[in-house]
């Protein structure tokens, strides 16, 4: 079948369209989904593109079902994904805990909207705690927090490879701005960039007759004793911690001699990067640390940078969900920490620069 993308193409698209193209380029077999704003257009583009390239789609009855059908698709050895936001993300936590427990490499794209409750369909960074640590588990997930359309494309492709290589549920954490905004980026065929898609293998529906030619696949998530579960979870945690250093990603901006260090993730990194430029031009030694992976978190890398600063400023479009991850990573350091929280609202570089100048 013809490749969906040949050569590198410069395009001007919304983030939702970007995700659909990325999934197509990543040889995704099937998407399961349920409508919720602001992720709808991922499905809209996918349902237009998929049939032309022999890919599948199922619109389910709710996000509980979208999450669990995605688990089913993955269990059958297919590259499968779903996408959601806000209240839909809540409903998908159940299936994502099953994916954590059974090491099912699902991919879930989250376009964060305002919360709590139905709130707004526009934008927020309020799904950090839920995406990283939702469910009755230990947060054994991989979470990429993207900030540009190029990253949405790159990390959506990467998510399928990371999920299938390491077998932990993987999330692309975007937001309503990224979903709906139009921006230029390059789309490409991963193979032409030397990116080899990690092969998928079925968990069930294997060849041969079970009990005759081979052992049956018997997959469970229920255990009988405390000791049994403790052993299982310990193994999961150990596996996660072992691979974490290979997965962690972050960026630094002017951190070498930074006195004021801005900590931000996702699209807010753009305001932080611009504020650093503005402040530097005014002679203020500002820097910025940006985790790309929120799970696993770049703990050591942040500690090294933060220890050198005189002051930290945690900035996010939520009331401290990202700050909790930061505090957890920086436990024991005595660098003063300030915060700038705007739950459910965007943050500009101007207000960040003012905040830092006013706070000096």
């Amino acid at each position, binding site marked *: 079948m013809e490749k969906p993308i040949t050569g590198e193409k410069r395009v001007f698209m919304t983030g939702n369209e970007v995700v659909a193209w990325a999934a197509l380029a990543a040889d995704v*077999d*099937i998407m*399961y989904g349920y409508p919720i704003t602001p992720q709808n257009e991922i499905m809209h583009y996918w349902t237009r593109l998929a049939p032309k390239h022999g890919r*599948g789609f*199922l619109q*389910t*009855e*709710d996000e*509980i*079902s979208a999450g*669990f*059908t*995605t*688990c*089913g*698709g*993955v*269990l*059958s*050895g*297919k590259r*499968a994904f779903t996408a959601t936001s806000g209240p839909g993300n809540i409903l998908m936590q*159940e*299936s994502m805990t*099953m994916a954590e427990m059974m090491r099912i490499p699902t991919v879930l794209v989250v376009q964060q909207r305002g919360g709590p409750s139905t709130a707004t369909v526009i934008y927020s960074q309020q799904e950090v705690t839920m995406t990283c640590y939702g469910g009755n588990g230990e947060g054994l997930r991989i979470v990429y927090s993207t900030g540009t359309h190029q990253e949405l494309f790159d990390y959506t492709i990467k998510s399928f490879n990371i999920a299938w290589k390491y077998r932990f549920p993987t999330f692309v954490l975007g937001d309503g701005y990224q979903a709906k905004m139009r921006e230029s980026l390059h789309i490409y065929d991963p193979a032409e960039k030397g990116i080899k898609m990690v092969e998928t293998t*079925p*968990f*069930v*529906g*294997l060849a*041969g*007759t*079970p*009990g*005759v030619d081979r052992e*049956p*696949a*018997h*997959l*469970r*998530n*229920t255990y009988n004793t405390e000791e049994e579960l403790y052993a299982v979870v310990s193994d999961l945690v150990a596996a996660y911690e072992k691979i974490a250093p290979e997965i962690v990603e972050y960026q630094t901006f002017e951190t070498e001699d930074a006195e004021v260090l801005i900590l931000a993730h996702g699209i807010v990194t753009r305001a932080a990067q611009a504020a650093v430029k503005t402040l530097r031009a005014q002679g203020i030694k500002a820097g910025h640390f940006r985790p790309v992976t929120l799970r696993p978190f770049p703990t050591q890398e942040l500690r090294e940078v933060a220890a050198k600063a005189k002051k930290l400023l945690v900035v996010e479009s939520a009331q401290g969900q990202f700050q909790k991850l930061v505090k957890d990573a920086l436990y024991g350091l005595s660098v003063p920490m300030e915060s700038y929280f705007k739950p459910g609202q965007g943050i500009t570089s101007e207000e960040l620069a003012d905040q830092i100048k006013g706070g000096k």
Partner: protein
Amino acid sequence: MTAPKMPKSWRAETKPHKFCPGCGHGLILKALGEAIDELGIQDRIVFGCDIGCSLLSWDFFNVDSVQTHHGRTTPVMTGIKRARPDRICIAYMGDGGGYAIGAQHLVNAASRNEKITVILANNSNYGMTGGQMAPTTLPGMKTETSPYGRDPEATGFPTQGPEMVAAITRENAYVARGSVANVRQLKNYLKKALQNQIDGNGFSFVEALSGCPTNWSTNAKDTWNFIEKTMTQYFKVGEVKTPAPKEEKSNG
């Protein structure tokens, strides 16, 4: 002593099974094992089991099996079938999983005519959690959460599952209610349900009336009487919908 005769698709290493003495699950799974054997589809089955007592069947068969969450076996099997249409997908659950917490999945899988087979054990209560009222609890029946008997004024009448599924499916569905009191008939229903999936016709659904002596606090005789005489006053055993015969091909 020789081992008792078991269906070929059963996994002998996991027997005796983990259900309570007198539980109906063993009989339903025996009928299912025989149905799988007679259809010769052991190598094509993906078996999904729910949470509740049905979860104890996760290693019951020599078939690839997935234990899912409470009520979520229907979507997991739907997801597998959509991605691998060559597999025969069975979702096995209890009445709580199918008619309460997973009712939206059952209704929508049936409406979409998903080509999977749902098998539901109806024992009129939540067994694993200790005998609470289920959607299928009979009027006046005492359970842990209806200690004075189910009052239909307050909590409604028993869910009519197959009748509901029949009402929302088209002519290519297979819907029946069997009983562990008639295992041969139940096996035939299960065979027809699986055949409907094999033929690629559409959704198939079999409810099986089943016993729960542990939570009913009944002896063998009373258990049997309850399944055969009392439950059938509300749950009519028989085929509710059989696929319309395909039009004869005029190939001369």
